[in-house]
């Protein structure tokens, strides 16, 4: 990947690459419970994306997006933004092998289907309200 281009003047500052360090990463809540995986990243939008000014502030990461993306991964395209759930970037406490949140998974909208199945279906099955013995 070394080329004839000069080094980036900002390269001595720690950086992240969005695709490499954020996409597909496992998200862990404050208790160490797996929450989801990152399917996309939400960025603050420039005022007019078609005509950017060098003086406009660069977009910032505002959230991590997750949702059902199996279909688009097989057949191509991408899920509309409305089909993805967002985890506010302010809930993130660390980015490493996993992305760690400082809140609990129950506080997030993203796990509502699992909670709904647990409370409305699993809980009605005899023995469904406690751990296996």
């Amino acid at each position: 990947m070394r080329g004839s281009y000069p080094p980036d003047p900002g390269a001595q500052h720690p950086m992240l690459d969005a695709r490499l360090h954020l996409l597909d990463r496992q998200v862990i809540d404050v208790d160490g419970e797996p929450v989801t995986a990152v399917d996309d990243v939400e960025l603050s939008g420039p005022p007019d994306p078609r005509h950017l000014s060098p003086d406009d502030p660069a977009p910032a990461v505002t959230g991590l997006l997750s949702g059902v993306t199996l279909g688009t991964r097989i057949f191509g395209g991408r899920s509309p933004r409305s089909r993805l759930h967002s985890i506010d970037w302010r809930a993130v406490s660390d980015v490493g092998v996993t992305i760690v949140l400082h809140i609990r998974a129950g506080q997030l909208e993203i796990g509502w289907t699992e909670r709904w199945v647990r409370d409305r279906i699993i809980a009605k099955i005899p023995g469904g309200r406690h751990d296996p013995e």
Partner: protein
Amino acid sequence: MILSELLGRAAYVDSHRVGWVIDVRLRPEGRDPDRPMAVLRVHGLIVSPHSKSSTLGYERSTVRSPGPIAALQRWRHRETFLVPWADVAGIETDRIRLRPDHRRYSPELIISASSPPEAKDFEHR
């Protein structure tokens, strides 16, 4: 705007295609005492002239093995460059326009802001 609107999109200077956006470099900016993680702001776009695919992490300066895969990735992504965000002229539905006088820098990621792995990171694997 979402990341997938940028990744894989062709980059043009005027009517000439110069490559595809394969990653977006982010720079942690400022530490707010009320926020445990810094704001990540777009530093630039990584543009590959020959491939739309990821570099699989081989743009990091310390990754040189396995040798054959590193060599293949270096060949596929030869002449890849980093364009500062200020040199992006516009984002359209089918292309990203770069300014004619845009700067090109080496895409090497010298210092990663990602935390190094710890034993607890592998508990769920």
